[in-house]
């Protein structure tokens, strides 16, 4: 018994010593594990007394998690994911406003919540990723129009994300609705779905599948096409639909009632600094801090034809659009 007591004391003292002087910030992120590590490790190097414990979840899972944990929040900060999920979270009262942040000054209105419940950290555009070898073999050019996806060569040869599991997938659906109107946009999605080989859960998965030659064309965000396809050495080529394409605002927010609000603000401010935003070039993302360095060959907003993307409308009509989409496609 005495032995047990001694052991317990030693263990407690040891634990106390190890944890001494280091504070822990709990975070949820929708960044890929590889990418999240870049920012989190840089942050920890900058603030050695703060340790970040984090979980990677897709934007949809993340919101479901926040809703489930509303009575007992387990994390303080939510990093990344498309702004429409943040709009939904704000409506559900899951976020904490913060308007004294560093980025609040430089961000134009369309990249932040008017009441400060979330801010944008990067932006990205919906693009086509095509397998070069497939195109060469069939004598095709990379698709430059939404209508190109309906050509017979691509039958059962497309891959893209479900609109209900992936921010990328929903941005694509909403883009088509903004472009063609609700009825025709949904009908267009149905026609694409007949050419689909399979839908994926995550938005960027189709880029690797295109690289592997499992499918000919995928639809994903341009930064994912470059980072996970071209930059990795896969035979992938990037192109954009000339009719216009949609975009996302990758956002960040404080979680209401999170256990470490002050630490979360330190990260929040840092993530909006030029130092942190310059790290985005490693993932070919378009930073929002005007002083951040850009990746070489980065596709910026002035190089693509963007649709008028109303993130608020997209967020508010999400459930309805998805239900219609399911009824039409049967997925």
């Amino acid at each position, binding site marked *: 018994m005495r032995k047990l007591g001694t052991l317990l004391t030693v263990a407690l003292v040891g634990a106390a010593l190890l944890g001494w002087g280091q504070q822990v910030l*709990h*975070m*949820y992120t929708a960044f*890929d*594990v*590889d990418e999240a*590590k870049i920012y989190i490790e840089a942050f920890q190097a900058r603030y050695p007394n703060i340790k970040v*414990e*984090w*979980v*990677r979840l*897709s934007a*949809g*899972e993340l*919101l*479901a998690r926040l*809703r*489930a*944990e509303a*009575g*007992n929040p*387990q*994390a303080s900060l939510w990093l990344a994911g498309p702004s429409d999920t943040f709009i939904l979270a704000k409506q559900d009262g899951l976020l904490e406003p913060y308007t004294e942040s560093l980025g609040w000054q430089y961000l134009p209105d369309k990249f932040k919540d008017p009441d400060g419940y979330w801010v944008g950290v990067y932006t990205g555009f919906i693009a086509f990723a095509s397998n070069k070898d497939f195109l060469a073999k069939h004598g095709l050019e990379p698709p430059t129009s939404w209508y190109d996806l309906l050509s017979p060569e691509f039958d*059962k040869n497309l891959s893209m994300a*479900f609109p*209900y*599991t*992936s921010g990328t997938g929903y941005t694509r659906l909403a883009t088509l609705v903004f472009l063609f109107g609700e009825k025709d946009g949904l009908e267009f999605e149905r026609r694409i779905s007949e050419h*689909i*080989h*399979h839908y*994926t*859960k*995550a938005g*960027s*998965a*189709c*880029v*690797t*599948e295109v*690289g*592997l*030659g*499992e*499918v000919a064309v995928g639809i994903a965000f341009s930064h994912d096409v470059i980072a*996970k396809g071209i930059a*990795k*050495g*896969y*035979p992938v080529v990037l192109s954009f639909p000339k009719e216009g394409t949609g975009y996302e605002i990758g956002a960040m927010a404080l979680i209401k009632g999170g256990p470490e609000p002050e630490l979360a603000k330190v990260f929040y401010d840092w993530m909006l600094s030029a130092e942190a935003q310059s790290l985005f070039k490693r993932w070919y993302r378009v930073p929002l801090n005007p002083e951040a360095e850009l990746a070489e060959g980065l596709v910026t907003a002035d190089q693509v034809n963007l649709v008028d993307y109303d993130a608020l409308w997209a967020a508010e009509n999400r*459930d309805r659009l*998805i239900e219609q989409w*399911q*009824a039409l*496609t*049967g*997925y």
Partner: protein
Amino acid sequence: MRSAFRRLIHDPVLLGVILVVFALLALFIVFPLVKVLQTSLFHKGTFEPKYFLYFFEGRPYLIRPLLNSLTVGVLVALFGTAVAFVFAYAVTRTDIPGKTAFRWIATFPIISPPFVLALSAILLLGRNGLITQLLQARWGTSWSIYGLPGLVLTETLAYFPLAFMTLEGVLAGIDPALEESALDLGASKLRTFFRVTLPLATPGLAAALLLVFIRSLEDFGNPIVIQGRYPVLTVQAYLAITGMYNLPLGATLSIVLLVPTLLAFVLQRYWVTRRSYVTVTGRPSTAGLRSTEPWVKWPLFAVVCLLSGIILLFYAMVVYGAFTELWGVNHAFTFENFAYVFSTGAGYLMNTLKLAGVATPIGGILGILIAYLVSRKRFPGRGAMDFLSMLNFAVPGIIVGIGYILAFNTPPIQLTGTAAIIVLIFIFQRMPVGIRDGIAMLQQVDPTIDEAASDLGAGFFRTFRRVTLPLVAPAFISGMAYMFSACITSISAVIMVVSARWQLITVALLHEVDNADLSQAAAYGVVIILVVLGTILLLDLVVGRMLLGRGRHGR
């Protein structure tokens, strides 16, 4: 019934144990499911079964997955049990060479995260897979592994080991003297097989079919990788919850899925309990096996070799993929992926080991205890205990996870974000297989043995520990080993409850798979396989020694 009550009152220890078990089952199995059912039927306090109505209206996105799931489940159960029976028969009833190796190969898939097999199927048989390309270059053939063929192939490989473990135990428990008597009485080998061996194995076959059918129905790891245009119910339920944040839809889909699995469960109970074959007489038979005739032996050997080759090929692909620079583009040899796994995943791995290490002994002992109560003791509510303890077996893991979030996020029992919630899910989700194995094993042991112990004055715990436990030790050890690996490779339920503090290695692997980072996913898979393999060997060694040291001899 009255006498059962009276006996129970005279045995307060037994009564206490039964009450504690019931309380645990009610809190950690029934309560979360009631929450899920409630979510599927009620919306903000009013009765509104919207998605059930949609289902009966025949909306294709609800009906199609059910039909698909059932098709896959039936095919996988048939193929899986057939493959398992071939292996189990070859290993227990014949004298083919290499039995130890075959036994290893037939249990191997159990220790790997199932979606590793789907990954491998794509690496081998996908549009740009190694075999696909080879055959395409030679004969110009092409096919698609996505959809039904891929699902049946990968799930058969993933789940036949469960059937094998059951059948091996059952076949090994059949006294060779019975077969020998039949042969001596002039029956042919074939007749002996069909009239003696096979009937004695029917309870085991039923259990095996049920096991594989249910596992296939609740699998989501393989389908999410390889279902293609053939959506199954679990994936749709999973996507409804994690993607659409639509708890009522997900809950409804899973309750639809529960109907066939519960039917299968009830059918199996009726069929198995009608026939009881007691062939173990307390003293394990030491009679050797007769040598098998060449015309049985070598074809069987060839079939087992072929099946083993397929399994090994699938795992070889995973290892190959793990050491590959960039799958599909640059197949240069590299350790890079492992460096990645150990830098990103070391903490996750430690968490997984810790939590599985806590859950395994608790779940193992609780499982065998329940098996013992259910198959040996007569008490009111015995059927209910059997049913409830097996319930999570038929419930898709993702629903268990959602149930736990709904049930344990608010006081009085607030467990969200703790290690305890993961441990509890491990215990109550994985225990049924331990119970199932325990019951199958106990059915082979003559009940008069522990009745004798009771009559000689041994109390409940003494009889359980000194008589029953040693008799079922092989099942108990294999149950523990299975449970540990099942915890480590578990994903569908725990993905809903992992937290920033307690993240698991399979969740990290699933994200690599989700993102189609094949080489890194393969490296994670290899690391998990090695860890589980190492731990099982260790457990087998330690526990086996311990039991032998107590004076138990052979099987």
